[in-house]
């Protein structure tokens, strides 16, 4: 069986850690947090409809992996998908406009929060059926190799998604195709301890979730998902390996969501306020900020600048979304099937 690595924190090379890139990562994580806070606000105001699942607390998992990718790599995830799009470089205003159901949204207002897509930036969605996108991502990875590119696919999913049948089918097929170097995919378990209100202990017979992945000959590695240094460190190494070998790999990022499962999850009877408080002490943004402060002399003023920038970006996004027009009626019937015309290259 494939190897399992436990690695909960990375050794930090001060030079590397102080590269300007790390400040960019901090900026990105702060932007994600501010963005999510805004979406919760706008949802309560009734300007965002449907279901809303925010990423607050898990930012290091999106940023630590996605910043390690090349420009043309591709990403799939579930419905908790704003952060991934932001990390891939999608303009905040186009995401916010999507949440507002506007024509200027990334998916023309037709997908909403659960179905962000931005193929130009490598973002292949945004899916609402738990576990449904895993096989899509494995197939996409196959296609990338089949077409003889060096691109890789990344597929995020939650701990709860590991209980549905298609998880298992995706793992086995990725493991099999990997033997021929035909499945360059990085699976990321966003293990935030809960599937909605059901804790890992209550939804999984064995809480070592990675064991399921190793049962398909896919190597796994556990990482502290609150520490972006650790996440990025693993990502740098395994992304390179996947690209070279065309074989799948899986990172289990142990993380925590600070907000409710979705906007409707107010009471949270499944966890205590205390537990949430405890985890807030391990805020991934705080951890990164403190590190950069200690090692690289990042000042409070620097941080303030970043936060102001992020708030400004988000405010502009909200304004853009608000001012954008709703899709015109004709959009209803568009995109059901392909319009006439040549096939697109889909790259």
């Amino acid at each position, binding site marked *: 069986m494939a190897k399992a690595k436990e690695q909960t924190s990375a050794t930090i090379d001060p030079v590397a850690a102080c590269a300007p890139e790390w400040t960019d990562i901090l900026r990105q994580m702060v932007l994600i947090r501010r963005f999510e806070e805004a979406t919760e606000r706008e949802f309560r105001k009734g300007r965002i*409809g*449907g*279901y809303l699942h925010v990423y607050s607390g898990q930012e290091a998992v999106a940023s630590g992996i996605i910043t390690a990718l090349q420009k043309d790599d591709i990403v799939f995830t579930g419905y908790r998908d704003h952060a991934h799009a932001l990390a891939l470089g999608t303009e905040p205003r186009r995401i916010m406009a*999507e949440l507002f*159901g*506007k*024509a200027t949204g990334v*998916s023309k*207002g*037709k*997908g*909403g929060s*659960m*179905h962000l897509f931005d193929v130009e930036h490598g973002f292949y969605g945004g*899916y*609402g*059926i*738990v*576990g449904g996108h895993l096989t899509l991502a494995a197939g996409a990875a196959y296609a990338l190799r089949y077409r003889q590119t060096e691109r890789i696919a990344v597929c995020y999913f939650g701990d*709860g*998604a590991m*209980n*549905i*049948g*298609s998880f298992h089918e995706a793992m086995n097929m990725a493991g099999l195709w990997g033997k021929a170097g035909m499945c360059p995919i990085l699976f990321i378990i966003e293990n935030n301890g809960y*599937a*909605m*209100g*059901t804790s890992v202990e*209550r*939804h*999984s017979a064995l809480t070592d979730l990675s064991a399921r992945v190793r049962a398909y000959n896919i190597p796994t590695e556990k990482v502290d998902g609150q520490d972006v240094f650790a996440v990025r460190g693993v990502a740098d190494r395994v992304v390179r390996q996947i690209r070279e070998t065309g074989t799948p790999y899986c990172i289990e990022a142990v993380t925590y969501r600070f907000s409710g499962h979705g906007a*409707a999850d107010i009471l949270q*009877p*499944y966890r205590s306020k205390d537990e949430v408080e405890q985890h807030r002490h391990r805020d991934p943004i705080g951890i990164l900020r403190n590190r950069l402060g200690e090692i690289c002399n990042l000042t409070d003023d620097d941080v303030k600048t970043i936060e102001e920038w992020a708030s400004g970006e988000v405010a502009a996004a909200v304004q853009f979304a608000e001012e954008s027009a*709703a*899709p015109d*009626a004709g*959009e*209803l*019937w568009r995109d*059901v099937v392909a319009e006439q015309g040549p096939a697109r290259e889909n790259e």
Partner: protein
Amino acid sequence: MTEKSYRDAIRDAMMEEMDRDGNVLIMGEDIGVYEGTFRITAGMLKKYGPKRVIDTPIAEAGMVGTAVGMAMLGLRPIVEMMTMNFAIVAADQILNHAAKVRYFSGGQVDVPVVIRGPQGAGVQLSAQHSQTFESFYAHFPGLKVVAPATPADAKGLLKTSIRGRDPVIFLESAALYGMKGEVPDDAGFTVPFGVSRVAREGSDVTIVSYSRMLQMSLIAAEKLSRDEGIECEVIDLRTLRPLDLEPACASVTKTHRCVVVQEQWKPFGAAAEIAASITETVFDELDAPVARVTGEDVPMPYARNLEVLATPHEQHVIAAVKKVMYANG
């Protein structure tokens, strides 16, 4: 009679049956500790304990499959789907197992399993979360398919479902959960399958529907009466399998005009069967072809304005009624 919401009627039906019969249990995602996404099961874990109120992993096929196995061994499991959209993942367990095992075993087992949950559009849940499934299930022999329009029917039909010996697809309208209505207090109250009812009497046009669209049709009928003096007879089908079209046909014999209303896509939807069957039975009575009011034939869009365009509304029913009125067959 007590005034109850559709939600509480469903909950009451389950709790009364659980009190009555120790073999009844309920399973589903986040129905216990979390108390249910629509709070239908709130308090039930505490009352009945974890052996009878089972929080499952996210595994719809597993939920249905295990419930079928339980049912074959004498239990009466109720499976709550968080929404019926997720039951597609369990389609094989429903259509190839639950629906058929009695038959291919030559009648050696009963399969008293109820698969219930909300469905329908209206709150911007977009393409994967807004569907309705009547025609999807009602095509398959071996199943019963229920779609109540009122709190009383929700309770009475659910009790019949739980007490029966066959797999039941119990389709709740999420949009009706808050709706109130009079519900009989008698714990023995049940509503039989396959008995449609006249929800409103009228002499000009027959409207046939079920679930939320029935309520919409009633509103349309009132408006037509008030504004145009057109009196519609409105038939509530209640169950799609078995399908009782006798009251609808009797009504058409009186009105000679008929409109069928459903929420989902027109092609190969429930209204097609209803319209075709009514036409077969009372063709000579019809003065106009049966008209169908349906949702638009597109995956549900997210944007509010598009969602409104995609779903049927009173004015569509009104327009269809007028169309069949002015048509002369």
